[in-house]
C-alpha cells in the first residue's frame, strides 16, 4: 500500500502554482535551482516520513534516465 498521496490533495492548486512561479520571479536560473533545492529540503523535513519521501523520490525519477542508484 502506498503511503504517498498521488491523488488530488491540495486545495487551490492553480493558486499554489502561481505562487510557486511568483516566488521564482526575478531569479537567475542558478538562483532558481538553489531555491528549489532548499524547498525540497524544507518540505522533506516538514513531512518527516522517510517512506513517503522515498516513494516521492521514486515517482519524481520515474521515466527519467536509467534506473536510479540508492545510497
Amino acid at each position: 500500500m502506498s503511503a504517498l498521496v498521488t491523488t488530488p490533495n491540495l486545495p487551490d492548486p492553480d493558486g499554489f502554482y502561481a505562487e510557486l512561479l511568483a516566488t521564482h520571479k526575478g531569479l537567475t536560473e542558478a538562483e532558481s535551482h538553489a531555491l528549489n533545492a532548499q524547498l525540497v529540503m524544507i518540505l522533506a523535513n516538514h513531512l518527516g516520513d522517510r517512506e513517503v519521501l522515498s516513494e516521492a523520490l521514486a515517482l519524481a525519477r520515474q521515466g527519467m534516465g536509467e534506473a536510479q542508484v540508492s545510497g
Partner: protein
Amino acid sequence: MPYDYRPFAYVAAPGLSAPEPRHKVVIVGAGPIGLAMALELANHGIPSTVLDDNNVVSVGSRAICWSKRSLEIMDRLGVGERARDKGVTWKIGRTFHRDAEVFNFDLLPEDGHKMPAFVNLQQYYVEEYLVEAAQANPLVDVRFLNKVTGLRQADDHAMVEIETPDGTYGLEAEYLIACDGAKSPLRGMMGLEFEGELFEEKFLICDLSFKADFPTERRFWFEPTFHAGQTALLHKQADDTFRIDLQLGWDADVEEEKKPENVRPRIAQFLGHDDFEIEWLSIYTFQCRRMERFVHDRVIFVGDSAHIVSPFGARGGNGGLQDVDALGWRLAAVLDGRAPAALLRDYDAERIHAADENILNSTRATRFMTPDDGVERLFRDQVLALAAKAPFARGWVNSGRLSVPCVYPLEDAADAAGLPAASRPGAVAPDAPQGNGWLMTALGGRMVVLGVGCTPPEVDGAACVTAEVNDHVRARYLGDAAQAVYLIRPDQVVAARWTDADAGAVSAAIARVWRTA
C-alpha cells in the same frame, strides 16, 4: 614543543641463532592496533610477539581524536588514564560557513561516565604509552626492526620470514595477526583484495604550535575566506599544538600549496596573528575501503590493514581499537580450547558490520565536504544556506559524524521490553558511577552477570556483579523496571538481558556467546 622521537632498542631475536618453538600468536605491526592487540591478549593470559619494521612511534601528524570507547578500552590495557590526562578534552564543536557560525554541538551532555566523549592526543603519545605498557608486560615481546618479508599458511599454523639488521629468521605461530596498516604488505603477500572508493581530493595537514589562548573546541569551516571555496578543520592537541586540515581540491599543485609562504598567511588569517611555528606539514588523499573478510584461516586482519576510512569522524584508530576489543577474548578462548575456532567468525561478522557502518559514515561526510560539481554541490551549498535560517538543516550539515561504537545486530539475543535502549543487546554496556569507582571497571574484561536491583543468578563461567542502583544506573539499565539481569561479554557488550532470569536461561545465553551450545 616538537615531540622527541627516541628510537626503541633493537635486540637480536633468539630465532636468529636457533629455531624458536611455535608461538601462540605473532602480531605484525606495532602501530596502535598491534600494540593494543598484544596487551589485550595478555589480559586474557595469551603471550604474543609483536614484529615491527620500524623503531619509532608514528612520525608526524596522524590520529588525534580518541573516542570515549577507545579510552575505556585503553583503560583496560593500562593506558587510559594517561591518555585522558595528557589529552585535550573537548566537547564543543563549531561549524562555520564563510565566516559566520552556522551551529555548534556539545558532544556528551551526559555526565556519570569515567571517560569523556573525546580527547585529542597525538598518535605518537598513544603509541609511546602502549609501547611502555607492552614492554613492561611479561606476556608481550616487542621486536623492533623486524620486517616481515614472507608468509605461508599450513593447516594449523602460519609461518613468517623476517628480516633484521642481523640477518633473517623465521617464526611459526598458531595465529598470525596482521596489524600492518593501510598498505598491509601481508594482504599483498596473500593476494587479497582491498575494495572501495578513493577520494581524489587532497588535504594538507599541518601541526602548529603557539602560546596564545585559543578555545578548546573543534572548528570546521566550509568555504572560509582564509581558504576560499574549500574546507578547513582545526583541533587543539596536547602541548599547545594545533592541527589544521586544509582541503586542497583534486587538481591542486601540491608542491606549491606546501610552501610555507602559501600556508602561513591562511593560518595567520583565522588565528589573528603570525606568532606560530609549523611543526609538521604533509599531504593526504583519503580512501574508504575494506577487505571482503578479515579472518583468513590462521591469518587475521585487524585495524587499518582490514579497513580504512577518511578521517572525518575519527573512525580509523577508534574503529581498530574496537576490532581489538572484539577479537582478544575470542581468540584467547579458541587458543585455550575453551571455544571452537568457529567463534572467530563472530569477530569477522561483527567487525565487518562495524567497518561498513564506519565506511558509510565517512563516505557520506567526505561527499558532503567535497561534493562533485553540479547537483551534489548545489544541494551541499543549499544545506549550508538553509542552516543559517532553519534549525533543522543544521543537523544536515555533515563535517564528520564522530565515532561511536556500533550496536551489533544480535538477533537471537534475549531482550526484555521496556528496558532502556542504551543498554540493548549488541550495545556496549554504558558506564555509570559505582561508589567511588565506575561500572566499566567493575565489569573488567570477563563474562559478567550483572544484577540491577536484584542479586544475579549464580552460573558457571561468569562473574556475578550486583550494581549499586543510583540515578545513572536506573536511567541506563532499568527505565521503569524494578529489576533486571544483564549478561555482559568480556568486551563489555551486552549479550542478553531479562527482567527476570533463572540460571538456566543465563547459562544458555553464555553458551551461545562462546558457540559451545
